[in-house]
């Protein structure tokens, strides 16, 4: 078991608590950077996809995990990111500028939309945002001049500093693009968490009343959380749309929102790691299942994989309602205490809920 001997308050502010921890993440980063030399183009494509989901997942995590606002409408903002990115590119901006601007643009729109949504809580916010993502479909058709309507857009060529980002010719370029974005978003996220804003997010999540009494402007905090969350989701959406090669009004439908929410909850609500783990489950598990069924000799039951996927999701949640990362934290504690841990240390103590209808 390792102890952190804290010698100054800065220890609690640092990105990494100690050298060991830093080396772990540095090693992970090296592995990720080396991945294109290790795995084939199929798995590289899947990794890219996972990273894209993780970017969008981090966006929703900021809102739902940190601020406690459940959104079922993030696909609308992903769509906004994708469309605005392509539009900015058509205006002649280089990809990188268009991409980042798409995030900012989506964030601002998200913040504006948050204003009428500020007074909503729980299921009310969830259905409000769900309605947004359902309306987005029609809105895209109505806004045909900017969206291409039902025909949508084919992903334009992407160039970054003279390198073409091409999914089929050079899958590693796409992978690095997704990885870079994921790293950037994670960095921002971590910084927010250790800053006053991150704490006010948590305050709003746990008790709006006492947050107010502490001087936290709940409306402003929620707007910021929503805006930032949308900005990240917008970046994720832009990547997803471009990665898919084409997108139209039906691409970012509300099912994407629901899957995104599933991802962060299964991964572990409130943890950055959770967004990544959840992305693996949601984006890669179905693929894994179909590879496994192929290996077993294909079955003749159509939709079997999706059915099994549903059952596995149920099993995940029953096994650990706190998400995979929550489970990992418990396992880590157990390992650290080894051999002194009690076997039933993590048996769930009975727990009880109280109404959320009091605000």
């Amino acid at each position, binding site marked *: 078991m390792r102890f952190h001997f804290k010698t100054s*308050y800065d220890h609690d502010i640092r990105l990494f608590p100690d050298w060991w921890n830093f080396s772990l993440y540095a090693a992970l980063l090296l592995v990720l950077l080396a991945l294109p030399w290790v795995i084939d183009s199929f798995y590289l494509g899947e990794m890219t996809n996972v990273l894209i989901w993780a970017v969008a997942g981090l966006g929703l995590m900021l809102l739902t995990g940190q601020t406690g606002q459940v959104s079922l409408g993030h696909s609308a903002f992903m769509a906004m990111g994708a469309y605005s990115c392509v539009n900015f590119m058509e205006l002649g901006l280089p990809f990188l500028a268009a991409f980042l601007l798409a995030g900012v643009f989506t964030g601002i729109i998200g913040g504006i939309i948050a204003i009428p949504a500020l007074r909503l809580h729980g299921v009310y916010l969830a259905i409000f945002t769900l309605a947004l993502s359902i309306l987005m479909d029609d809105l895209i058709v109505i806004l045909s001049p900017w969206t291409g309507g039902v025909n949508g857009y084919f992903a334009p060529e992407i160039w970054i500093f003279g390198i073409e980002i091409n999914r089929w010719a050079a899958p590693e370029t796409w992978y690095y693009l997704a990885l870079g974005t994921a790293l950037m978003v994670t960095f921002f996220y971590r910084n927010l968490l250790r800053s*006053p*804003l991150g*704490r*006010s997010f948590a305050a709003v*999540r746990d008790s709006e*009343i006492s947050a107010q*009494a502490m*001087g936290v*402007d709940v409306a402003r905090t929620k707007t910021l959380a929503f805006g930032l969350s949308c900005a990240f989701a917008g970046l994720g959406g832009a990547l997803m749309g471009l990665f898919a090669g084409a997108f139209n009004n039906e691409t970012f439908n509300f099912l994407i929102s629901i899957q995104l929410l599933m991802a962060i909850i299964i991964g572990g609500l409130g943890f950055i790691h959770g967004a990544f783990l959840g992305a693996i489950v949601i984006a890669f598990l179905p693929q894994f299942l179909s590879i496994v069924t192929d290996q077993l000799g294909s079955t003749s039951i159509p939709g079997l994989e999706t059915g099994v996927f549903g059952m596995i999701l149920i099993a995940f949640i029953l096994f650990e309602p706190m998400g995979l990362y929550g489970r990992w934290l418990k396992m880590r504690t157990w390992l650290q205490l080894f051999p002194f841990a009690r076997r039933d240390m993590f048996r769930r103590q009975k727990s009880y809920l109280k109404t959320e209808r009091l605000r």
Partner: protein
Amino acid sequence: MSLLSLDGVTLKFGGVTAVNNLSMAVEEGQVFALVGPNGAGKSTVFNMISRFYRPVSGSITFDGHNLLNHKAHEIANFGIARTFQNIELFEMATVLQNLLVGRHRHRRSTLVEQMLFAGRVRQEEREHRHAVEEVIDFLDLQPYRDTRIAGLPYGVRKVVELARALSTKPRLLLLDEPASGLSVEETQDMRWWIDDIRRQMGITVLMVEHDMGLVSKVCDRVLALADGAKLAEGTPAEVQAHPAVIEAYLGTSAISKTANAAGVRV
């Protein structure tokens, strides 16, 4: 001029008049107690000062500012902090994080700086942490620094709430029943803390408390409330001796033995 004054304040909930034409004034440096039977409207007065409720008539002035022109979250910026009768902490956060939220009104950095964790943010974080650590030392909360609120016993939570309020560096501290649920020993600590808060930190305190022992030890002035209206006001001794207060609030009943016991608690 008084630091905080309420003038003819009235608040109704449907048919219930929770506060009825109440006027009171808290002077800078005082420890002022609100007492009164259950349901007299004490917490409601706090909630109006915090701007969770808006009185139907009357005015509330703090240091020359009309509080009724401000929103709930702006009240803290005037230097008013409070605790809650039934404890409202950030359950999923640690004690340290709870207290750091108390520093919210002292932050200066912008969103972009925070996203990049620029130098100024780091510097501010250190300052916040120092301020909070002082409060932790003052209230003996060191063992709980990194514990989540959800795992704390009732009594500690009460202290954490006080600590969070102190972290805002307030001028006026509103304490809603700070000693309820505390043992005799802890109530004694509370007494010293309140004394120090007033003497060393120079913070004015307005508190609601049913423990008359504590009230008579730490308060300069007491206002007794019943059915939302003022029943009596004066020094602790004066109010405790007031027949209407005894009748409605303190009681003279058969088990005076326990009343005495309660009286000697501090």
